[in-house]
């Protein structure tokens, strides 16, 4: 069974990853996702970013599931 999922990547983070979406094996929760992304893109350690699951920003560790809509977001700078 394929448990790969797409992570949407926005703003300057997309410059870092070289793409607006990256594929990872579905981690159990958002903390694991963060760890996994930092392994894959070590330079991410220099960036502030937050994770959004199903269009809501995550403020504490949250479970992930197949089919979740996941995104990583640099600090907002609209207006």
């Amino acid at each position, binding site marked *: 069974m394929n448990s790969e999922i797409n992570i949407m990547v*926005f*703003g300057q983070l997309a410059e870092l990853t070289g793409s607006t979406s990256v594929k990872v094996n579905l981690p159990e929760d958002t903390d694991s996702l963060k760890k996994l992304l930092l392994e894959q893109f070590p330079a991410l350690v220099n960036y502030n970013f937050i994770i*959004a699951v199903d*269009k809501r920003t995550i403020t504490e560790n949250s479970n992930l599931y197949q089919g979740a809509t996941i995104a990583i*977001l*640099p600090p*907002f*700078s*609209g*207006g």
Partner: protein
Amino acid sequence: MEARKPKQLFIQGAISSSFIGDSIQKHSSRHDIGGHSIFLGQVRADQVDGKTVRAIEYTSYEDMALEKMHEIREAIFSKYDLSCLHVYHSLGTVEVGEICLFVFTSSAHRKAATEACSELVERIKAELPVWGKELFDNETHQWKINK
């Protein structure tokens, strides 16, 4: 009362002064309104290390931005006695001197419109997943940071 539907938020490119004028004009049929408060964000030609910003290129996580804006609208309508509330934000490239944000509130008495407008601007800048890439005159860029 029926829940308000998500409204248009994004405009491709700059927000024109005639669009703003037309939006104001549309409110002349609302005879319960006594005051309008408007905030406009305009792209500034900031200088950074000898380079000059010539435009800002805006991107967004649009689906999330629309949901968040809907949530902010509902909260502002609950908190203030408003007749109307409109927010438009540019996507894509906006040149210096052009308008990239248009926040428009209306109420019977001025205090509600004025306070709601200020709170909206703060929340939009802090909570909407929108990113500005400042394009310099020498083809380099930097990512905008909101204070």
